[in-house]
């Protein structure tokens, strides 16, 4: 790590171009610093009143370098391991993209996947956001058309890093509209390397969010542009971008609520103008029609409560515009009576709706949408759905989280139409990020933009004092820009800027010393930010989790490839239609890598099916066998980390299985049975006997009691839970061990077929009595089990 520091501080002194060259071939750590400082250099050189050509060349270079830096910072996983799809959900996306490229678009839309959720199956075409797959498939198609033959896997792996470059460009455009070009370039550099966004877009994480953030930022840019210009052209562009966003990610709901909120607040602030009217009316109508073209979304935009705000604001805007029109035509007296009549009618209508909603209890659902999921075990079990501590904020945003309020402050102090938008964006996004960790992703872009505003306004004032006189030129330049785009309606911001520049002229002193100290310290902060970003990316967000790595004391690396070993075994050694039961986390991976039928997977749409699997895992062997027979299970796959100390294994997840099973089958499974009388969850001798004899325990520790890992510990010592297991003599009756991977990480068991019946010692005549016995047994079985699936 010392070396790490060295390389970064070196980079500060070197020229940026050379550095980025190095980073591209190497590890990508150094380039972000170079970019940030070159963003600062830009302000310096524009200060020199170069012709506009220089400015655009520099902007272009910086954006290109930001793209490069962002791209290379995301390659840790590819360099350390290989070009491989990560984690869980990306495997499904990869599998469906693969299906798309092989069978074509229409086949993909109609795809019924009979290999998932056995025996129910899943309609894939109608239950996914197809944007990601279509994007990757299209790129693959174009490349192959140009005879650049790449495998679809490589397209999928590198899609998110490439799109991160597009994200930084659209962030640049948006920030330029909101503040000025310098802030835009800083924002582009920030978002290229900020961990909050890298977490979802490293190479190999082929997930919706990777392209959705680009679509989000670009939609916002086009929206701001259309509000500024009031032209239908930009509004239609905004709709198309919105359409892409809807096709890519469920987070489009954020857009369809934020834009109406913006319009509403503009109305409240009496900033209504014809531009807003044109922009929003076009956006709402065209956007609505386009969004309904996605099969998964369908009629939701006119049915569900999340979309009602947009419709309400649309109606309000029309009413407001109508009133404005009347105001021109009528006398003041007439207008006032009409106005009061209209307002009281509207108030009455709103009041009645609220009463109705309260009566039906819907309003609480509306207000507390964020709270509801917490009480459902299957949602609570996913760690992404937890509220956010300050540490996560700092971890993902570092210096930006402390400075972006300053940017927000500047924006509100110098308010205009589009800055209203960014303020609303910041406040709503920060609220959602506080409620749920995964929504940090929507907060990250706005934090980058506002921090860039804060930093750029500091740099503008403190970077070199010989440029003092030239600052007004720059300001005028951007003012011209504003005017060209938006007419003369931005008087407020313009005035403030002039104010600032006048004072700049009046400014004598502060001294070059103070100025350079401030600049140096700010650059230091940004450098620390870059170091932090690379550290976080390298250590926290670049693990594929399909391949694990461990480090020896001398720093050398061991690759644990147990997952792929086991999945490949399944692929090669089992029947093509074999059904594999596992906990839902591994469903997508089994389908993607082993190409076998699964019972449940990460698309957790059917809770009772998952509960059934949970019940099988937490019952004793014979009860589990009955469930498994009824579900036609051929193999059971579990993850066991006791040998190498891997903490994300099935025993550690086991309580969630019990909880989810208890939710559906409270008579058979009770969570309290799995604890010791003291309320502890233990796997050693003191553990509860029901736990020590349940299927999951038996499968995890089968033959583990014979194994002595090292001389200091007794045989059967579990390294993950630091305990000697309590049940060492495990016999399996209905299952047999089929495969255990090298480090015992994955264990696969084969479910035995039912045994042959005992040979008949009666004469064939007595078959009738035998049959009767058999039926009576079956009826007894059906009566005892309350689940309809069990009645064979």
């Amino acid at each position, binding site marked *: 790590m010392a070396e790490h520091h060295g390389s970064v501080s070196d980079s500060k002194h070197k020229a940026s171009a050379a550095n980025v060259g190095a980073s591209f071939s190497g590890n990508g750590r150094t380039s972000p610093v170079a970019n940030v400082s070159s963003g600062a250099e830009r302000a310096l050189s524009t200060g020199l009143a170069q012709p506009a050509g220089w400015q655009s060349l520099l902007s272009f270079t910086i954006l290109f370098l930001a793209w490069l830096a962002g791209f290379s910072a995301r390659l840790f996983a590819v360099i350390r391991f290989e070009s491989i799809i990560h984690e869980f959900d990306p495997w499904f996306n990869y599998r469906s993209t693969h299906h798309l490229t092989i069978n074509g678009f229409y086949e993909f839309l109609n795809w019924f996947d009979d290999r998932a959720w056995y025996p129910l199956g899943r309609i894939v075409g109608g239950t996914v956001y197809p944007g990601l797959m279509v994007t990757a498939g299209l790129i693959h198609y174009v490349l192959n058309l140009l005879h650049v033959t790449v495998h679809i896997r490589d397209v999928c792996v590198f899609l998110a890093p490439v799109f991160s470059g597009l994200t930084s460009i659209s962030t640049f455009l948006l920030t330029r509209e909101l503040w000025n070009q310098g802030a835009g370039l800083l924002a582009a550099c920030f978002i290229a390397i900020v961990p909050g966004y890298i977490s979802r877009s490293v190479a190999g994480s082929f997930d919706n969010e990777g392209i959705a953030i680009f679509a989000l930022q670009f939609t916002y840019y086009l929206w701001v542009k259309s509000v500024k210009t009031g032209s239908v052209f930009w509004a239609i562009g905004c709709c198309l971008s919105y359409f892409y966003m809807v096709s890519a990610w469920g987070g489009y709901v954020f857009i369809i609520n934020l834009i109406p909120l913006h319009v509403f607040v503009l109305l409240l602030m009496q900033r209504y103008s014809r531009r807003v009217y044109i922009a929003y009316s076009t956006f709402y109508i065209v956007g609505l029609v386009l969004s309904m073209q996605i099969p998964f979304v369908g009629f939701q935009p006119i049915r569900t409560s999340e979309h009602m705000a947009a419709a309400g604001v649309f109606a309000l805007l029309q009413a407001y515009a109508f009133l404005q029109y009347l105001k021109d035509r009528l006398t003041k007296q007439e207008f006032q009576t009409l106005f009061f009549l209209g307002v009281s009618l509207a108030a009455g209508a709103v009041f009645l709706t609220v009463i109705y909603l309260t009566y039906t209890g819907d309003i609480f659902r509306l207000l507390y949408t964020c709270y509801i999921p917490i009480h459902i075990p299957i949602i609570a079990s996913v760690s992404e759905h937890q509220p*956010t501590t300050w540490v996560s*904020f700092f971890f993902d945003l570092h210096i930006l989280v*402390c400075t972006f309020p300053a940017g927000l402050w500047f924006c509100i*102090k110098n308010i205009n139409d589009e800055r209203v938008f960014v303020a609303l964006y910041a406040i709503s996004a920060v609220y959602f990020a506080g409620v749920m960790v995964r929504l940090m992703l929507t907060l990250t872009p706005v934090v980058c933009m506002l921090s860039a505003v804060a930093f750029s306004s500091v740099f503008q004032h403190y970077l070199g004092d010989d440029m003092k006189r030239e600052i007004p030129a720059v300001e005028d330049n951007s003012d011209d820009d504003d005017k060209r785009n938006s007419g003369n309606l931005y008087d407020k911001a313009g005035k403030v800027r002039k104010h600032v520049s006048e004072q700049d002229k009046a400014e004598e002193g502060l001294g070059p010393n*103070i100025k350079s100290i401030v600049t140096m310290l700010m650059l230091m902060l940004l450098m620390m930010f870059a170091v932090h970003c690379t*550290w976080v990316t390298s*250590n926290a967000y670049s693990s594929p989790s399909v391949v694990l*790595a461990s480090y020896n004391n001398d720093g050398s690396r061991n690759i644990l490839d147990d997952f792929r070993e086991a999945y490949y075994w399944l692929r090669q050694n089992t029947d093509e239609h074999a059904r594999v039961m596992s906990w839902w986390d591994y469903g997508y991976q089994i389908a993607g890598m082993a190409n076998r039928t699964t019972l449940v997977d990460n698309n957790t749409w059917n809770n009772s099916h998952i509960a059934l699997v949970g019940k099988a895992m937490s019952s004793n062997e014979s009860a589990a066998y009955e469930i498994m027979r009824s579900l036609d299970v051929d193999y059971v796959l579990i993850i066991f980390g006791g040998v190498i100390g891997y903490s994300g294994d099935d025993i550690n997840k086991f309580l969630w299985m019990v909880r989810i099973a208890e939710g559906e089958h409270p008579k058979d499974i009770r969570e309290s049975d799995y604890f010791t009388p003291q309320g502890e969850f233990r796997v050693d001798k003191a553990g509860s006997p029901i736990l020590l004899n349940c299927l999951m325990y038996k499968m995890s520790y089968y033959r583990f009691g014979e194994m002595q890992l090292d001389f200091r510990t007794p045989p059967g010592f579990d390294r993950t839970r630091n305990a000697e297991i309590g049940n060492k003599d495990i016999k399996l009756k209905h299952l047999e061990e089929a495969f255990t991977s090298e480090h015992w990480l994955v264990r696969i068991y084969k479910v035995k077929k039912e045994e042959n019946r005992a040979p008949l010692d009666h004469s064939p005549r007595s078959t009738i009595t035998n049959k009767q016995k058999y039926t009576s047994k079956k009826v007894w079985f059906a009566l005892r089990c309350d689940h309809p699936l069990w009645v064979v």
Partner: protein
Amino acid sequence: MASVSSGFPFNLPIASLLVILLICLHSGGGQKKKENMLAEKVEQMMEWSSRRSVIRMNGDKFRRFVKAPPRNYSVMVMFTALQPQRQCSVCRQANEEYQVLANSWRYSSAFSNKLFFTVVDYDEGADVFQQLNMNSAPTFMHFPAKGKPKRADTFDLQRIGFASEQLAKWIADRTDVQIRVFRPPNYSGTIALALLVSLVGGLLYLRRNNLEFIYNKTGWAMAALCVVFAMTSGQMWNHIRGPPYAHKNPQNGQVSYIHGSSQAQFVAESHIILLLNAAITMGMVLLNEAATSKGDVGKRRIICLVGLGLVVFFFSFLLSIFRSKYHGYPYRTESG
């Protein structure tokens, strides 16, 4: 399974029947008395519970109606200490949940004389606590209609908590009585909101001649920053998880304000972070102010240095807190 009767001798059931009859005849008088007593008890309990959904018990009542054998009803007992001088805040919360549950049962359509909710306060029935060897409150116990309470008849408060839904589930488990918990809707939030709205409205109305302050950007900016600071310092996490304010080490009495793990935080800690974030933001604003404001150069220099100091000092402080929570930062951890 199918063939029960074929092999059995006939005389055994008849003999046992005779024995039972004999016993019945022998104790016939006692049986009648018991039945009377039982009916009386049930009637008494019903009367009480029609008056209040949770029956308060003292030592004598407890022994007579809960412990004494002739019973055909289950009794839920909450052992608690509600007197203010006991300072048991958990008891009060648990009591509220228990009341909600008892009311749900009392006013449900399935209400019957099979289940009663009672409470024993320590200050009214200390002897009961001694008798049952109980030394912590609150405790929920179930006394089944037949037999003695088993281990599972004591509610596991530590692990499950005392939400009335959980209690209802446990009761359903022990007695087969399903109670659907109905919480009276909480109007306090709505009323507070209405009050606030009317207050603001009234204020606006009173100052209708001078509405300039609505256009005061500083006020709005302050409000926006408050929201941002509250969220980035994890107040929402506090709101949902309800952590303690700070942790006091019972051994040496040291108070720690910072939680040791990066997965959790204390309320005090989040307040500290809030202040740090605000200080850094203020530093940035001051830096900008120093460069743009008119006035004396010396004063502006001081503002500038103060701003810079705020940013650098408090950011270092924040970083060191983060480092203390995030072990191994910024060094590579062994597991990678």
